């Protein structure tokens, strides 16, 4: 185990070194793959029962970093390494068209980014955790700044840096409170001692942790950095940030919220559930209004983190309300969705990158007809899009199904007030699912189908195999985990009951190898339903193609109906037009602004030019962050008065501070 850890560390380090020094990127990619493989092997061994618990010395005895592999950590390490391997393969080919300096930067930083994420999940004490956390934030910031010569990228990076450090400060405060109260920096000791702390202190710690991890996981209203920062990074890094880095924050939330702090008051769970509902609905609504493909995907990350948070919230409530089975199923749902989102979101970002690589860009309104030109990228995009929409028989459906089940159980068993919260959750999840499906009809339909809208889209060609194969592998996993839901649900349920210390309550019948059967009420999904589905589709298809052939003339391809005229390329429905009814129906949230300018000759009926401009109001930027920013600046202006430049005044400050310290701290 220890050798795997060291070789993983070494391989990632070597990859960074090769990326920085060698002209040829191949060696760096290979070393990064080796690092990913070593950590994946470590995680698999840990999941099979082996344990690793080491202290890496940093200096004399107390200065050591403790790393361990409990099952929860191992799961996330496996996720990071697995997705990391595919993203590295993709990245090796993707950066080929970058300028020399940028290519070296990306090849150096990506392995370091992967390594720091891995170490966050392996950390078992405060020092290791915070060092790795900060390294993760800084490497990802540097990767976001790859195109740093463009002003909007600098702006996005700055917002990201500020938000991530606000989060880090909250985390540091929470962890220092824990350290002060327990007298130790070790997670094991925290877990033992935290449940005995004063309720007020525990709640303060919980809120700080929620702020810290919530800002990294991009829960509304802490999400504003995400749609800015994720789209400007290189696509495989966007995939890693959305698919994996947000999950590291979810890991942190589970670690502190469940393992360390243990059951808390009811409002913890209600708060997380409410944030989840808010994030999922607002995330998907903002995604719908977006037609920059990568920004759209970034908003969908907000939505999916919201769905995960709904599961976590119900699990917290269940833990508090002494409904251990409910808590286990809800946490299983959250873990399943965590893995699912990592798979389909990374696939979608890789595909978006491939479309960009093919020269089409990121604007959906400039795409069209790409399925015929980029068949493999197109198929993986179609599958991943159906998965993220939560449609059967893909994996997104399974985790949403589990989330529904936990909400329904909460409604049935939690008493009237909790039932109301559960109803809100069910309705929000249903609305989110419907809107997500609508949004991905837009993405696949406008992007891949129909006719190309621009010259670039007409000329698009399939990307090299190193780029479409990773996306296809991810899409295949999405389908596989949807068809055989029990493969992951069973181990996740075991893991969840371990995290919740509910080991004995989970009956053996609750999960099967392939089926997911709930321990209550007889609801279950499994391959039977999906086999029936596949059989019915196959039978219909066979019937349709075989039975009719003799009775009718062969099929013919003709120009589509256009009221007798010709259809111009731009008269196809665009992404903007597609989202129009949504903008109107949810106008209260979007607050759309539009301006239409018409130039006409002779008579207003003879228009020569129509210019349309429409956008939605950035509500959070304007009404939430605007006042905060104004307040901080005003405070800073007052604070500046302390700094007069007078030496005597400064000496006076020192005297006053000294007296105060001597009086109060002794």
């Amino acid at each position, binding site marked *: 185990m220890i050798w795997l850890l060291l070789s993983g560390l070494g391989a990632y380090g070597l990859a960074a070194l090769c990326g920085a020094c060698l002209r040829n990127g191949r060696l760096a990619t290979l070393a990064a793959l080796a690092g990913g493989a070593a950590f994946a092997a470590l995680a698999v061994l840990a999941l099979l029962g082996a344990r690793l618990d080491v202290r890496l010395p940093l200096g004399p005895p107390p200065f050591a970093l403790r790393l361990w592999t409990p099952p929860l950590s191992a799961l996330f390490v496996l996720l990071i390494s697995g997705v990391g391997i595919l993203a590295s393969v993709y990245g090796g080919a993707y950066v080929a068209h970058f300028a020399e300096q940028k290519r070296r930067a990306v090849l150096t930083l990506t392995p370091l980014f992967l390594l720091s994420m891995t170490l966050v999940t392996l950390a078992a004490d405060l020092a290791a955790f915070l060092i790795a956390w900060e390294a993760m934030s800084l490497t990802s910031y540097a990767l976001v700044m790859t195109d740093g010569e463009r002003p909007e990228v600098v702006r996005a990076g700055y917002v990201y840096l500020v938000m991530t450090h606000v989060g880090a400060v909250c985390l540091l405060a929470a962890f220092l409170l824990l350290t002060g109260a327990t007298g130790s920096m070790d997670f094991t000791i925290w877990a033992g001692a935290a449940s005995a702390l004063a309720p007020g202190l525990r709640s303060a710690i919980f809120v700080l942790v929620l702020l810290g991890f919530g800002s990294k996981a991009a829960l509304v209203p802490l999400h504003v950095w995400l749609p800015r920062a994720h789209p400007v990074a290189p696509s495989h890094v966007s995939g890693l940030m959305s698919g994996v880095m947000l999950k590291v924050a979810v890991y942190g939330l589970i670690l502190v919220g469940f393992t360390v702090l243990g059951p808390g008051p009811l409002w913890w769970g209600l708060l997380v559930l409410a944030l989840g509902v808010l994030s999922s609905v607002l995330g998907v609504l903002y995604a719908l209004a977006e037609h920059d493909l990568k920004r759209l995907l970034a908003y969908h990350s907000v939505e999916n983190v919201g769905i995960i948070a709904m599961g976590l919230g119900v699990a917290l409530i269940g833990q508090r309300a002494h409904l251990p089975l409910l808590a286990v199923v809800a946490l299983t749902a959250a873990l399943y969705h965590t893995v699912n989102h990592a798979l389909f979101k990374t696939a979608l970002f890789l595909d978006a990158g491939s479309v960009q690589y093919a020269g089409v860009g990121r604007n959906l309104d400039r795409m*069209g007809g790409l*399925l*015929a030109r980029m068949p493999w990228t197109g198929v993986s995009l179609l599958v991943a899009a*159906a998965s993220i*929409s939560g*449609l*059967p028989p893909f994996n997104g459906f399974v985790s*949403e*199904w589990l989330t529904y*089940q936990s909400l*329904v159980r909460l*409604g*049935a068993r939690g008493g009237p007030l909790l*039932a*109301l919260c559960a*109803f809100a959750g*069910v*309705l929000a999840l*249903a*609305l989110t699912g*419907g809107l997500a*499906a*609508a949004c*991905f*009809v837009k993405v696949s*339909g406008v992007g891949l*189908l*129909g*006719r190309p809208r621009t010259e670039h889209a007409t000329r698009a060609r399939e990307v090299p195999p190193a780029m479409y194969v990773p996306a296809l592998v991810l899409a295949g996993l999405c389908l596989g985990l949807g068809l055989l839901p029990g493969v992951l649900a069973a181990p996740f349920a075991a893991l969840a009951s371990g995290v919740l210390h509910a080991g004995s309550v989970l009956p053996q019948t609750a999960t099967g190898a392939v089926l997911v059967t709930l321990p209550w*009420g*007889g*609801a*279950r999904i499994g391959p039977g*339903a999906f086999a*029936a*589905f596949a*059989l*019915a*589709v196959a039978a*219909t*298809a066979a019937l*349709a193609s075989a039975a*009719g052939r003799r009775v*009718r*003339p062969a099929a*013919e*391809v*003709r*120009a*589509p*109906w256009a009221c007798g005229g010709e*259809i111009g390329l731009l*008269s196809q*429905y665009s992404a903007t*037009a*597609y*989202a129009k*009814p*949504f903008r109107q*129906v949810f106008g209260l949230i979007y607050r759309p602004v539009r301006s239409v300018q018409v130039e006409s000759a002779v008579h207003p009926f003879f228009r020569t030019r129509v210019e349309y401009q429409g956008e939605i109001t950035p509500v959070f930027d304007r009404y939430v962050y605007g006042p905060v920013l104004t307040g901080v600046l005003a405070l800073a202006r007052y604070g500046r008065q302390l700094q007069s430049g007078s030496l005597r005044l400064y000496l006076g400050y020192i005297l006053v501070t000294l007296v105060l310290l001597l009086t109060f701290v002794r």
Partner: protein
Amino acid sequence: MAMWGAAVGQALAVLLVAPLVHGLIQRTKAALQGRHGPGLLQPYFTLIKLWRRQDIRPTPASWIFVAAPRLALGIVVAATLSVPLLWNPAPLGWDGDFVVVVGLLALERYVLSLAGLDTGTPFGGLGSSRESIVGALVEPALFALALPWMVLAGSTAWPALVAASASATPASVVRFFGLGAGLIVSLAETGRLPVDNPDTHLELTMIHEAMLLEYSGPQLALISLAQMTKQLLVLALVADLLVPWGVGGLALPPGVQPVAVLAKWAALAAGLGVAESLSAKLRFFRLPGYLGAAAALSSAAAVLQVWGVR
């Protein structure tokens, strides 16, 4: 093995009966509108006519356009297998619950919406966009419809839902509210007035038909059959949740039971025709309020259920 036999048998029976139900609704409408109207069997003749016609595809269409009708029919048939139609539990009731059925309905809509955009025409896109927003708003309403019974049963499995509804007080506020919402949801899900008009091809008001405008011949026959089957499925779904007797709860002699359930369906189908005849088309942007009313009614029913008001 017997189970799969029953499943295949039921699938075939559903495909055979669905056009008849459609014919019954059309007859009811004709009678109410004072027309002579087509015969009960007209949907069968229409399907056969379409089946023998040539298949014409638009130039930009990809394989999605060709696969969509087959997928749509397969998806709807698969969904009927887990909803109790004549008997409870359904042939495949063990593996599919309420959430799976709603998911399959969403998948069918997703596939057809993609096909609409695949035609590369303004009509296709227009239909897809409208169909998607109706779908996104119907989904919460559909869930809300089942909420009171899910809470009562503590489960989403069909047998439990049917049993919960059958064992609750027959004439209660909860059921009354649910019936109002159920009517709205079934009108919306089957693409009927006041949400959509199945009998028009006027460009500006079409939703579902605009999306399918480029389909012709056998492909259109498959989609029409899928649509009729879905209509039957939605009726059965609403009936199972709100008036489950015959399928669950009421013990009838084995010979009488299927006849009674079929009669119940016929009554529901005729009711759908009456409801459609009584309503005028709503303006498109008034739909959210209409569908929201369904969700609100059912949520109110669920809240009453939780608070023990029956």
